[in-house]
């Protein structure tokens, strides 16, 4: 009886040992694609600052304040402090909501339409003959993309403009227009096959 028990125990142990050795052998061959960087963040229970950073990195950085917060980082902070839901960012749209839901382990929800609609990329253009040089738009631009001086014509640095529309309301002569960006050839994308 004891003999049988010992035999079984030895068998189990040796199988376990073989299994362990095999698993170690298989280790180097294991693909790195199992390691999801997002999963680490969730499981490690990172301090809030790092989580805010992670959320902020996913936000579109238009700094448009459509979410009701004065920029992308403040919105990221509000999300982590449970002060705002993840569906308040129209430029990020549904793709962003999915990404944030995956990061934070929450449910995907539809975009809050009260905050605005997702638009294609746009750029602000100052109608230069109409500009009176009041410098109000310069103060409003969250990314310092407008250059000019009082009583001199202003202009938008198109490459730096995020199309946030924040320069529109302060302009006393309504000389700022928003143009949809025509994708340059080097950024053209192949269509997805049906």
């Amino acid at each position, binding site marked *: 009886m004891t003999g049988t028990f010992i035999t079984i125990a030895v068998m189990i142990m040796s199988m376990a040992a073989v299994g362990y050795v095999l698993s170690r052998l298989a280790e*180097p061959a294991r693909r790195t*694609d199992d390691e999801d960087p997002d999963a680490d963040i969730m499981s490690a229970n990172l301090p809030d600052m790092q989580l805010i950073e992670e959320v902020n990195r996913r936000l579109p*950085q238009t700094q448009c304040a459509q979410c009701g917060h004065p920029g992308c*980082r403040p919105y990221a902070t509000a999300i982590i402090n449970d002060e705002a839901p993840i569906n308040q960012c129209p430029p990020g749209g549904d793709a962003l909501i999915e990404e944030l839901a995956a990061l934070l382990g929450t449910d995907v929800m539809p975009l809050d339409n009260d905050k605005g609609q997702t638009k294609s990329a746009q750029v602000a253009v100052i109608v230069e003959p109409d500009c009176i040089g009041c410098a109000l738009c310069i103060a409003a631009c969250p990314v*310092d*993309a407008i250059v000019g001086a009082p009583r001199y014509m202003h202009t938008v640095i198109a490459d730096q403009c995020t199309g946030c529309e924040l320069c529109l309301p302060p302009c006393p002569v309504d000389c700022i227009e928003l143009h949809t960006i025509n994708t340059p050839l080097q950024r*053209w994308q192949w269509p997805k096959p049906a």
Partner: protein
Amino acid sequence: MNRRKPVKALLARSRRLQQTGRSEPDGGLPLVRNKPGLEAVGVPITELPVPEQLVYPLLDYARQTVQAQVHVGESVLLGDSIAEGILATASGTIKAIEHRPIIHPSHRDALCVVLDVDATGDENTQSLATSDTLSTERLAQACISGLGGAGFGTALKLRAAQNKVANISDNSSETGIHTLLVNAVECEPLISCDEALIRSDAQTVITAVHTMIKLSVCQRCVLAIEDDKVDAIAMLSTAIDAVKSDTGVDVELVKLSAVYPSGAEKVLVQRITGKPLPTGVRATELGILCLNVATVVAAWRAQAGYPMISRIVTVAGSRANKPCNIRVRIGTSVADVLQSTGNAPEADDSRVRAGGPLSGFDLQSLSVPVTATTNCIAIEPPQSKSAAMACIRCSHCSEVCPVNLVPQQLYWYASGNDIQQAQRFGLDNCIECGCCDIVCPSSIELTSMFRYARSSWREQQQDKQDADIARERYEQRQRRLSHREQEARKIREEKKTQLISSKDPIADALARARARKRPS
């Protein structure tokens, strides 16, 4: 376990493979070459007459807009600069700078310089002085760019290869170009422009290769060619024996089994060195300078003072009446090429493709100009598309993939828009050769999906970069504003403390008011 071997070891292995026999590719398809338009051995390639109008898109190899250096109405001579990297390929007058259709899969227009050619358009094409040695500066001056694939500037490539070398390998002391790899393997089975060039004058090819050896100061030179180009190989062997050089580097003729797509740099380096290029690493970074054979000849001609004004184009395809290889001035419209060679599509349903039937794309307009990278114009019957069925995981695609990917898995991720996961499975290494499409029994458009996924990934990365810049600027502004706020507060505080510390605040205030009062 899978540590990369040093380059020297790779090359040693490749030499061993060559001694034991040619290195067989891992994937690819042994497609039958129906060598069209190859005239008798040694016949010079005919030259297309210079058309009345030439068009130059103001784009560089990466499709970035470049600034025109000419204005409308200006007279230019052959070899004059039109923009950075673009030369006038005939003399004439600038007629317009306007949007015109170009060779691009988007079928979009781009800003182009339109040149009306003078009657004297076919004068002497030597616009630069002859020089004794070839220099990188001369390559840039003559606008030599890759005639094989992407059209990267040869001078830039050479500099990149000379400067940025091999700290990837374990012995990082190694610098400079150790191998010059001359690519005479065609991009596609249908294309024969490189073979036509070799057959027209193999001796020139070898002389040009020796010039490039001298310029690149390489230790080894490999000329790679498919083994079914029998005539070309014979002519090259004779020429290698005939042309003597003082560099002490011999031209090794390596015959590769004719498997599509061996002409792609990534696959060619893998077949020559026996090891695949690591992801995201270019051959130049390993000290291998890979140049198309036509590029090498163009560089040699630049030494003699001839800028790169033309290229050999293969006109072929199953609907082509007279398949041929013809030397075409860069800027000539595709319609002109087809008309002059007697290949204008007759049937309405013919498709004209730029860049070959497998890796190219259909053209919507025939008025698009030929560029330095237009190696082939193919006239094909309409595509017989059978509806795609579900993937049955037969793995045929993985077997033929020349860069050892698992296309079925990549397709799974890419079609589900999980491009990040597709990237982890090596999407970046895909060369979009189309082998997987050919073998797929379910007629799945794998390559189109990978093209979409790759361009979409690039765009995502670009968007991320743009967002990073915007975030940096926003945060800098926030810092500046809060700093300014702090400064202002500090001044207010100082004033306040000054006021409080004053012994007789009322007398002080009166004194200040008196001082402010203007003398009447």
